[in-house]
């Protein structure tokens, strides 16, 4: 599978453990994502909150680069990035004059032929039937709370992925790995997202609810496919516990961590030893 890779700022910043995990895991499945040269930030919340046009232009520039570099499929493992890329593509598809305007802004053409994929979709492309026989270490002790967060499934008319209220794609992968995902309520609730620095109390409150619900429903870990969710639930878990008085001790895994472990990759190769909350 020839696959372009848009890491986004998080995976080249403090969420570089996600990139390590992703490369190790996909490599085992013989998928080598190729990073787009000269990619720029998608603008994230700051762009869509402060400048609508910029929030289309920045992702559009990356779509143009992917096209220029001859790719048809583009993996964006950060749901914020993938949503922004898909939104820009959709708005330009619906409005030819916007497409022309943006193309002069970014000094490049976006024909719309690049397909943006989130991480779960890449596993679906590889095929769960191909992953299943490759499982060497079934994760029988694992009862993960599958946490989708906001932007993997929302807004549905933009991302067109799974079900926005009752998604099941992560649970389907967990079942293939031999894990027993729990049934719980906060799968698509927001963790506080980019407010980690700007408004910490939002993250402390929203992420506490997620961890508490996962714990109440018998989860012994969480699994996510979003770098921001991982920061808020893993790195901030100690602060959340101090703030609320709870004791969670719930490890938070990237999706590629768990697929990788099941395929027989070591925790160190996947970068799991670099997480904050350790498995007890």
């Amino acid at each position: 599978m020839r696959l372009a890779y848009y890491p986004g700022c998080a995976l080249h910043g403090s969420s570089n453990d996600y990139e390590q995990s992703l490369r190790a895991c996909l490599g085992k499945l013989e998928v080598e994502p190729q990073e787009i040269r000269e990619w720029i930030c998608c603008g994230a919340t700051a762009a869509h909150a402060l400048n609508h046009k910029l929030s289309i232009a920045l992702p559009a520039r990356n779509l143009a680069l992917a096209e220029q570099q001859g790719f048809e499929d583009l993996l964006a493992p950060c749901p914020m990035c993938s949503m922004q890329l898909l939104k820009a593509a959709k708005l330009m598809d619906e409005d030819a004059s916007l497409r022309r305007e943006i193309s002069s802004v970014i000094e490049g053409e976006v024909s719309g032929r690049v397909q943006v994929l989130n991480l779960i979709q890449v596993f679906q492309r590889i095929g769960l039937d191909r992953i299943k026989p490759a499982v060497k270490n079934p994760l029988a002790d694992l009862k993960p709370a599958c946490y989708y967060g906001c932007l993997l499934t929302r807004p549905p008319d933009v991302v067109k992925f799974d079900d926005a209220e009752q998604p099941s794609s992560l649970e389907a992968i967990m079942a293939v790995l031999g894990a027993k995902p729990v049934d719980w309520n906060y799968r698509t609730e927001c963790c506080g997202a980019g407010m980690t620095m700007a408004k910490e109390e939002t993250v402390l409150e929203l992420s506490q609810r997620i961890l508490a619900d996962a714990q109440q429903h018998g989860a012994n870990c969480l699994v996510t496919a979003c770098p921001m969710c991982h920061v808020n639930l893993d790195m901030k878990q100690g602060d959340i516990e101090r703030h609320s008085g709870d004791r969670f001790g719930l490890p938070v895994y990237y999706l590629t961590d768990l697929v990788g472990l099941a395929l027989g990759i070591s925790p160190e190769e996947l970068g799991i030893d670099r997480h904050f909350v350790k498995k007890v």
Partner: protein
Amino acid sequence: MSLFSVRKITIGLGVVPGTAGHMALALATRTETTVPVESSAPPNSSRDLLTEILAPTHWTDCYQCGKCTAGCPVAAGVDMAPNQVVRALQLGNFEKAMTSDAIWACVSCQTCSTRCPQSVDCAGIMDALREVSLQRGLASPEQKTVVAFQQAFLNNIRRNGRLDEIELIAEFKLRALPSERSLRFLFKDAGLAPQLQKRQKLHLRGEKVKDRALVRRIFERCGDGKHA
């Protein structure tokens, strides 16, 4: 849409007392009572700009069911719930919406837009309000810290093309310091640095793209000057 037709919607809803919709309307309009509707908002450029940016959100279609607010993770702690923000717009009280704390407390989770039975893009409304509110200097002083973060973020991308986390944190702290006015705020996250370092998550120098001049041109063409 003109104010006149917006008012017709209001009246149309108001004549069904005793229904859930009526109760939601009463809840939503409660906060409007002290503010004159049309006199406070003469036509001006911020209104025109906002109306233009709001157009794709279908904001006039809201019938105040309150589903956006029911699913909003931050509604309980803010001055105006999402349905009240939309209501303020429908009543012509654009300034009230633009000066609210709510628009900056919004985490852009998209739950409101996803669940709206009228396909109102409530999260898009929040974006439009933030954009124009900032341009017109109407952002709530209470929310300066959030505004400072978003501005520092965009400045950083404009300079480097990609996010430099340490630079972002430094600029954000300095920008927000005048409103936060505490050393605790300034150094609150400093303890994280060794923790991140230990995990090889700290990058003293962030990545930069080669063609940064192009990035600046993109920002300029989008009308995004450096955030002072």
